[in-house]
């Protein structure tokens, strides 16, 4: 937890895993879904999205497949792997532990 970016990046991975646990989708759809699900609160910049996706793929948590999209073009669909599912569980638990710990400190008693 040395730099704030670590927190953001780690969180982004968790968000991506969570979104992809619903259904396989491509990068643009992931960005839109995160925006919707957070009530327009969170906007994932493309600058962070794709490196994070490629990194998750490299880690073996998600896998990619080219498939026709809703506008009949070829798009790269990402899907959770079993390992990714396990990671999502672990990361979620970790996040809850962390956020409640932070709440304990931040919330006035």
């Amino acid at each position, binding site marked *: 937890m040395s730099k704030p970016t670590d927190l953001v990046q780690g969180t982004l991975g968790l968000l991506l895993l969570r979104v992809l646990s619903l259904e396989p989708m*491509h*990068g*643009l759809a992931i*960005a839109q879904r995160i925006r919707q699900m957070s009530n327009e609160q969170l906007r994932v*910049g*493309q*600058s962070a999205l*794709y*490196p*994070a996706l*490629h*990194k998750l*793929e*490299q*880690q*073996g948590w998600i896998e990619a497949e*080219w498939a026709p*999209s809703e*506008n009949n*073009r*070829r*798009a*790269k669909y990402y899907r959770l792997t079993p*390992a990714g599912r396990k990671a999502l569980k672990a990361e979620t638990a970790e996040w809850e532990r962390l956020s409640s710990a932070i709440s304990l400190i931040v919330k006035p008693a």
Partner: protein
Amino acid sequence: MRWTRKLRLRFRSLFRGRRVEDELAEELQYHLDGLIADHIVAGASPGDARRAALREMGAIEQRKEECRDARGLRLIHAVLSDLRYSVRQLRKYPIFTAAAVLTIAVGIGPNVTMATIISSVFRPLPADDADRLAVLATTLSGNARIWQRLAYPDLQDYRAAATPFSDMAAWDLRAAGLTVNGRTDRVMATAVSGNYFSTLRLEPAAGRLILPSDGELGGTQPIAVLSHSYWSRNLGASPSVVGREVRIDGRPFTVVGVAPEEFHGTFTLLSSDLYVPIELFQSAARLSNRDVLAVRVIARVKPGVPLEQARASVETVAKRLEADHPTTNAGRRIRVYWERLARPEPQGASQTPALAALFLMLVAAVLLIACANVLGLFLARGLGRGREMAIRRALGASRSDLVRLCVVEALVIAVLGASGGAVAGLALARGFAAVAAIPGFPLFLDFRLDWMTLSYVGFLLIISTLLIGLLPALRASRVDPRSDLSEGRTSTDGRRRQLMRKGLAAAQLAGSVVLLVVCGLFIRSVQGLQSVDLGFDASRVLLASTDPGAIGYESDRARSFYESLDTAIEALPDVESAAASVFVPFGTGNSTPYIAVEGQPAPSSTSGFLADKHLVTSDYFRTIGTQLLRGRTFSTTDTNGAPKVAVVNEALAARLWPGEDALGRRFRTNSEADALLEVIGVVPNAPYRRGEIGGPAVPRYFVSLDQFDAVNRTLHVRSRTAAAGTLISGVTETIRRLDSAVPVYDVYTLERQINDSGGGFGAVKGAVVITGVLGLLALTLALVGTYGVLSFTVRARTREIGIRMAFGLTPGRVFRMLLRESWNIALFGIAIGLSLSVAAGKVLEQFLFGVVPYDPLTLLSVVMLMGGISSLVGFLPARRASRMNPIETLRYE
């Protein structure tokens, strides 16, 4: 399973890089198009929508780079692009590239040749757990010599009592005539005990090997095992060979099997084609005599047992044997060596590895000089590239990027050079094996590019890459964009850079001084050996060996064969006289029995002393040109039934009868146990072994072939003319006319035997050739390097020299100033080289003859040579500088 998936992804990114890149571009494009569509839906014009989307996306190339980073391939991509850049750069400067690659190849080549030869000598036997194999050898107290053989009864005792060994086998090597399909080849045969192959743990390629169940000494059944190479060369590797009848020295044998491929016997430098029971080739009396060192021994040390423990155990048994058999075993000890380190024979256990290390160091010196040369090239070019590096820095390349670029460039050069050098070096090694025909010794070296050699070449490759790449890399990393980009760096280089370049040149010269001095010392050794009066007239004597025993001649038949041969050869024109002997001066064969004066106890290792025994015919001394000092040589009356007689050399006479006349006195030997030999003549001490030159004379005696039989003999034919070589065809034809089936071999002059054979001066001459070639190579490289540094210095100092001349320095003084600089380099290099040479000479001392390691003549010649040549090399750039027009040089800016 996750790591396999990861690995697959990595490989995909690496090897299907184009596809991955395309997909990345497509993915980002899809995203961009989606954003544009969203903006248009929200009511923006297509142009505004596109601009807004692009703004949101940010720098797309940077996104791609980040994705590549995420894939963990940045370094590889960077190296690949460096590689492409380097190859482009090197192709742009073909002369620079060719010079650098060629220089590295010249440096690596000799290393590969040497490593191939050394690895073929030290390659482990193709046996299971070959590193547990050991050899045993005998020593006697008060004698520095190491005997390759043990007495067989001793071997039996060590085998029974020395527990650190799991087994010990006996073997010996001899030439034999092998007749298959009516054709007789003279091959190397290994006579083996029954457990020879089981001790080595070898499996047959066909049939079976000789087994312990055949008998402890291989049994008395005439069975034979063929080598894999003989089997494939002469019998088409046909499995039907098992059970085939062959003839060995005329006797019928049954082939029971074929030895495994790649197994060439247990004598490293020879290839054995035949394995037979030792019992059939050595008499039972000889094998059971504790006083005859009859067999070579290979043993297997139990797993995990250190050699010291094996040695200690053998020592204990040796002491017990000394107490039990004092007449034979007093002072007798056994040495134990790892088999690989005691090649070719235990005698060489200390010398061969030392010699190998020495030669590896000499060829490494050539590589170092070559690297220094290429480094010089790189540094000289680096000056011109300072701007390029500064621009790269200014454009955002990190220091590590620049270092990487330089190292990759060096790596490309080194890889190209090393591959070229490796191919050439391997070819050279093969050529060497073909050329190095040693008289009387069918040298066998198994040249294969094995892992040992390959990894050594890889090691050299890394070393040379670092040597030529690291310094330019460090320099590039220190580039400062501000100062290096500023226009026209015109001043002369700082002292440090100049010193470094000159130091490089001096180091190259020092390296070649060492090589030349070593070569000079070997040349002087050969001179020393050749200047010795050998006491016989080698140039006019032709040698020709025959072995009628190989096709089954019995001793009576052989005797009459030799009698008619002698008459027929002496009838040839140009033949002055002909004689025969069993052993040749400076040959590999010898017999050294114990002797003692009549009246003393029977000679043995404890009661006698060793003497060289030679079997010769009556004309021998006349034929090789040795004068009898006293008495007579053998005559027709010294026949089988007559009293046995001997001619002895002065050393033997002086040892047996000091201060007395030896003529008419008698002595006994343990090789002709029942016979007393009466001295009928005395000859001067002529050296028959290399060790006798400059060392003590060996006691030697000669007996008559009419009184003692030997079936294989070497004819000595003395020519009337100065060149005995002209007799070759006449002599071989004469032998063939008598019996065309009798093998004739080793036909060459006695002079060649002395000068070129392993027992003669061949090894030292070989060292002269090798170090000579290396020395010249090193010298050439060093001179090219020095010339490069000097002319570079002149070029870099153009402006400075121009200014000096403008201020009145005369051309003559410019010339002298620059010549003095090259002398400084040479002096420095020679001084370092000489001190290194003396150190190398100390290591060499045991291989030198009649010359001290600091031989003044050698050192002086090398100094003169180097001084002369480096002045010559310094002359050209100095003259060029002195002829410069100062106005021109200053206008250059």
